[in-house]
């Protein structure tokens, strides 16, 4: 095991909202989007983050990338803590950490050609290269992700979703980053195209030694690409572990319910989804104790009183008083 390239400790993100206030001058309410997530990413490995919509998985990586400002916790990149209030620090972070977004078309500027889109970060961050070398880099990157040279002067709307996502990947790689944060990069794509993009990401990871955080709601895809998986619920960590083991023997009741619901493309496998009763807690007003208590089939009094700590055993971290 090598040293981690990125460690996140007790990261918290809250948003102010007007919702639920009595008067216009009442104080803002707080939406608790991410509630204390800790993780570490090792060089060349992939961490998958899964959870249902609204669980804070996208906010988590947007906070790491500095697109939303964390309200608590620390992010350490290559041994140095990142200060999100400092512009120099955030720029240095952008040099090493790049993001790929969910909507491939909306994440590209419609008024720029593909060549301009990919060369912009090159000019900004690769001052060490002379202009010809920068041009060559843009050319090589687009070529590598499978965009033909005759299309370099076209605009994003002239490409399909899969091609736009390839362009987005080329743009992210233009600064020669060490970490790619992927926010649902394939969920907008068709199955046959999705596999192309997943394979491309895996190849690039092997060639360039990238570390990936891969957020998706599709557990099949996450299982396929990830070395480790982190399961989130209501902004908190439920379980984290090596992906094969976690899928085979989930120990947290939420992970168990989530995995039992995944449809399997094999008519001989009978899926018996474990139905979760109860309502989701409001992120404006999180319960004391376990975040999952309102829907948990195993809840007991202890779950209401105290928040279970994330306990590590045998390479697995589980936040449950009654983990199997």
């Amino acid at each position, binding site marked *: 095991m090598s040293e981690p390239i990125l460690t996140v400790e007790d990261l918290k993100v809250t948003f102010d909202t007007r919702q639920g206030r009595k008067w216009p001058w009442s104080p803002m309410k707080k939406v608790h989007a991410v509630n204390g997530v800790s993780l570490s990413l090792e060089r060349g490995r992939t961490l998958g983050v899964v959870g249902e919509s609204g669980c804070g998985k996208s906010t988590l990586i947007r906070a790491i990338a500095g697109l939303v400002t964390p309200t608590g916790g620390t992010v350490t990149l290559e041994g140095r803590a990142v200060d999100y209030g400092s512009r120099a620090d955030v720029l240095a972070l952008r040099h090493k950490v790049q993001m790929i977004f969910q909507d491939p078309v909306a994440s590209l500027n419609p008024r720029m050609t593909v060549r301009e889109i990919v060369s912009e970060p090159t000019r900004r961050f690769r001052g060490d290269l002379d202009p010809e070398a920068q041009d060559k880099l843009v050319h090589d990157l687009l070529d590598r992700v499978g965009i033909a040279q005759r299309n370099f002067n076209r605009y994003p709307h002239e490409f399909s979703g899969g091609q736009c996502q390839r362009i987005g990947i080329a743009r992210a790689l233009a600064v020669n980053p060490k970490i790619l944060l992927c926010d649902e990069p394939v969920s907008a794509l068709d199955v046959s195209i999705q596999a192309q993009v997943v394979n491309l990401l895996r190849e690039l990871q092997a060639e360039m030694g990238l570390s990936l955080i891969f957020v998706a709601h599709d557990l099949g895809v996450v299982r396929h690409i990830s070395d480790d998986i982190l399961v989130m619920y209501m902004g908190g960590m439920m379980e984290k572990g090596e*992906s094969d083991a976690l899928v085979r023997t989930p120990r947290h009741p939420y992970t168990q319910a989530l995995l039992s619901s995944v449809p399997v493309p094999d008519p001989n496998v009978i899926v018996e989804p474990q139905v979760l009763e109860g309502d989701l807690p409001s992120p404006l007003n999180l319960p004391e104790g376990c975040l999952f208590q309102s829907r948990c089939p195993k809840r007991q009094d202890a779950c209401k009183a105290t928040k279970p700590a994330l306990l590590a055993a045998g390479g697995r971290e589980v936040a449950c008083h009654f983990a199997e």
Partner: protein
Amino acid sequence: MSLLSVQDLAIRFSTGDGTVHAVNNVSFDIAPGEKVALVGESGSGKSQIALSIMGLLAKNAQVSGRILHEGRDLLTLSQDALNKVRAKKIAMIFQDPMSALNPYMRVGRQLTEIVELHEGLGRADARKRAIEAMEAVQIPDAKNRIDAYPHEFSGGMRQRIVIAMALICKPGLILADEPTTALDVTVQAQIMRLLDEIQSELNTAVLLITHDLGVVAGFCDRSMVLYGGRMMETAPTKDLFAAPSHPYTRGLLRAVPNINDAAGELRAIPGSPPNQLRPLTHCPFAARCVDAVEQCRSTLPELTGEATKRACLRPVEALS
């Protein structure tokens, strides 16, 4: 005797860029009580087929072919006659439950409207039926929730209301257009199980339109695979997954990640979907097919076979 028989259906759209050939001479039958899947990627024409059955195509569409239901061709019916078929005989469940419901109407009214119109029930009886329908789709506290507005429900609950609307007149056929795509997996599992229970209770036929092969495997008796607006293969679901006989179906199944089997690389289908601005003169999959020969680029294969029907010029044994 089939419940619905689609024959030689072709749908074209006139657009600023030219004529889009969305559906190209597709034929299929649905038997009473049968659960059929229509599988395809975006742009394959699967939603347009459902919309054409309901008479809901966009104004710039040109349709040819026949859609036979109870001895009548739905494509030739007037709007008035179609309104007697919609919801009563054939109902539709839409993908996005928020935009399928009227945000200004209480959900109860949206349900009672249907039975008042189709069955001539009075207010009180209609309300009773609406509460029953909401209970049938397992909405807790239906008696009080009936007076709520759509925005007061979660996504999964809204989709249950849309299903209740589709079921309230006990139609013979339900067209479910990506009913769970907008939902989380845990909710998806609940909705699919609910559909399955209701289907076996009422013996309603279901045409499930989806791109998710996992959902198909768990629900449907028979599957039909569309590509480029053309039927590629139709087979009993078990056979389709065990021994896909068309190169496209094979490619699709290899490209799907399986949660129980992470070994090996996903095998992507190279290339991108076809340009549908040109009329179809050869197999639409030929450009991406690993098994294509010269003939595939000049001839349009017909759908042939018994239990398993396939539209491919190459024999099954010759496929890689």
